[in-house]
């Protein structure tokens, strides 16, 4: 037999073998099936109104963050914040009250602000805070709270007064669409609570100027001060700490820029507001941003898996005059771990 014929017959037989081996493998396709739900975490799902968009970089304490799509671009901030336990409503409202120039509320004084609405057989507590500080483009905060199964869900909507009025119907539709179920493990977003001393093992220290008026600390703020000017203007200073990086630098800076009425920026624009600084011998970031009437001075420190924020915010002129004191406080800040 000629060698060519030998090889061709061998090849044919071998190809048949190879095909057999190849065809014996599993048919690789995506599979879909139903199974028992074994997910133990909290469930938060929603449907966004058509003219709302998602803020992809919003992480950390937010389970979700959205904006309203307008002809001028994304406006306003809407969020979903889970709290792993039933927290006092005044604690939550005071998180926003200070930034809008409101006094601290207690459990009694907050009652007059609460409006209860029922949506899809669920009861939500609504509180609307108007901006008492800004002269132009006054902002509002519309806060909705839902409590179930020992968990509290906060839906803050912070935007211009006009936009909130326009979007009220969408906001209610959004609240109606939410599916909220607490789980045995916490939601991805972490309860913004101060560091418990038992896990921290040490407490941070700092030196504040004498004329900065100390206010009671809250479940969020481990340092809480108000700085008053001669003409009634004021500054709010807070020290907060959270596990993780709570969304990272960009997300936090953009949130703050929104609070002082400035446009959000991107990674490349961060350098306009941010510079490096050492705090407690650790590398940190200093953020300086000023709008026409408001200013934000803040320091961000990431250390051992936690984020530390030292933030001074309020009247621009007063902030400028207090800048030296703010820097002095940063220099005195010590985490107490050495």
């Amino acid at each position, binding site marked *: 037999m000629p060698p060519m014929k030998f090889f061709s017959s061998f090849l044919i*037989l071998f190809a048949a073998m190879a095909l057999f081996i190849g065809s014996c493998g599993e048919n*690789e396709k*995506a599979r879909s099936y*139903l199974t028992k739900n*074994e*997910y133990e975490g909290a469930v938060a799902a*929603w449907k966004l109104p058509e003219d709302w968009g998602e803020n*992809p970089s919003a992480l950390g304490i937010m389970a979700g963050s959205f904006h309203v799509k307008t002809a001028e671009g994304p406006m306003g901030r809407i969020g979903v914040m889970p709290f792993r336990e039933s927290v006092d409503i005044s604690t939550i409202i005071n998180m926003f009250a200070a930034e809008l120039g409101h006094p601290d509320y207690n459990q009694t004084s907050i009652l007059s602000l609460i409006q209860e609405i029922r949506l899809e057989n669920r009861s939500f507590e609504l509180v609307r805070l108007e901006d008492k500080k800004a002269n132009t483009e006054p902002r509002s905060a519309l806060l909705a709270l839902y409590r179930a199964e020992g968990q509290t869900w906060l839906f803050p909507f912070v935007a211009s007064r006009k936009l909130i009025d326009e979007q009220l119907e969408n906001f209610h539709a959004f609240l109606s669409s939410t599916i909220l179920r607490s789980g045995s493990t916490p939601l991805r977003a972490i309860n913004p609570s101060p560091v418990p001393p038992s896990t921290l093992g040490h407490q941070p220290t700092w030196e504040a100027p004498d004329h900065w008026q100390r206010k009671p600390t809250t479940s969020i703020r481990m340092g809480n001060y108000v700085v008053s000017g001669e003409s009634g203007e004021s500054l709010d200073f807070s020290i907060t700490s959270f596990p993780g990086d709570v969304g990272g*630098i960009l997300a936090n800076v953009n949130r703050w820029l929104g609070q002082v009425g400035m446009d959000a920026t991107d990674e490349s624009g961060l350098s306009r507001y941010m510079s490096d600084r050492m705090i407690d011998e650790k590398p940190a970031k200093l953020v300086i941003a000023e709008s026409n009437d408001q200013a934000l001075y803040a320091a961000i420190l990431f250390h051992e898996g936690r984020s530390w924020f030292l933030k001074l915010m309020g009247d621009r002129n007063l902030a400028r005059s207090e800048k030296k004191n703010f820097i002095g406080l940063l220099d005195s800040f010590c985490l107490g771990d050495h």
Partner: protein
Amino acid sequence: MAEPKYFSSSLIQRRKNFAWLIPLADLRLTLTLLSLSMVLIFVATLEQVRVGIRGAQSEFFESFYGIWHYPEQFWWGEFLHPLPIPIPGGYLLGGSLIINLLAAFLTRFQWTGKKMGIQLIHFGIILLLVGQLATQALQEESRMLINKGGTVNYLERFHGVELAFIEVTNPNSSRVVAFPQKLLQQDGLHYFPDLPFKVRVLQFGPNCDFKALPPAIRATGPSESVNRGVAQSANLQIIPKPEDFSSEGMNFAYVVFELLDGAHSMGVWAAISHPAGNHFWAQIDPSIADLAFQPIRKNGELWGVSLRAEREYLPYSIELLGISNEFYQGTDIPYNFESEVLLRTDDNQSRRALVYMNTPLRHEGKTFYQYQMNKAADYTVFQVVRNPSWLIPYLACILVSIGLLWQFSFHLARFLSRNASSNHRTA
């Protein structure tokens, strides 16, 4: 009835009909293939030291050829080691042997009762080779880990991962859409009707190193484009690594993928699979615990995505009632691992069983062997084997035995008959 022309019982006629097969039936080819098989076994045994059992099996037995480098520590190793030496693989040798035997069957063997033993022996060997090939292609090995008091209704493959999207909005049932590893390895865009988005696989790797970078440092490599999920929030740097085939190897498979709502990008995620189970992520670092379930919300539904060991759900479940392990007195050498289980089928039938060494539980084509146990942590692990061709080696051995018996009996009978006639003549 007329005999088929092609498969005539006459050897001469068959040699004419299958003349082209005659060279393939050459005994020298058989001997060459058997010799090469011995070389293959020798080389693969040496290579086990370098790549482990699974690596050697994959590289040399489950392939048509393998590349071997002469060991450096052998004679002239410093000169010969750099040379890549091709070694015929298991598929090539096994396949060639089957062809060789079939050709011999058709063109060399006489199909007579006198030679039937030889035919049965060779047919048994062919069956043995085919059986091994079928086992290679069809056998599935998985594990089932059950905590004491817990009930499990799925298996996890020892090797291979899947990208699973799990919808958990309904408290009673979960919808799961899983993309197997082979699909992830192809990259490209994948669409599935049950998913409210499309999945574009950007990069997949069987193993990686990873570390969380400080927030100020931007990740490079596979996770550079990631802008959503845990890899983004924890600023994870993924460093691809080759797959570790050794028996102790821990492979952290990873995938970087983009989700698309129509043509609109929803973002780029990364997922990493923990070889011991994704629940271990929380123990490594709480900031990456969500690698076990990265939330994605769409159309009022909460989906979670994770890269996990490929799963197979069963139409029955197994509850672990109790475990016991006993050791030889004064030693750490176990002499008995035992799991008491309750098997429940979907139609509410149930049965208790004890699974221990050499006494597996068999159900619906699957065999559950006692594999690992942790008394302190109160869990047991079964190795679960499904092999549809398990019967073939037994049939092959029976055929070979019958063939040998037939052949020897035939010779014995002939010898006795000759002996008897010779004695008769002498008398």
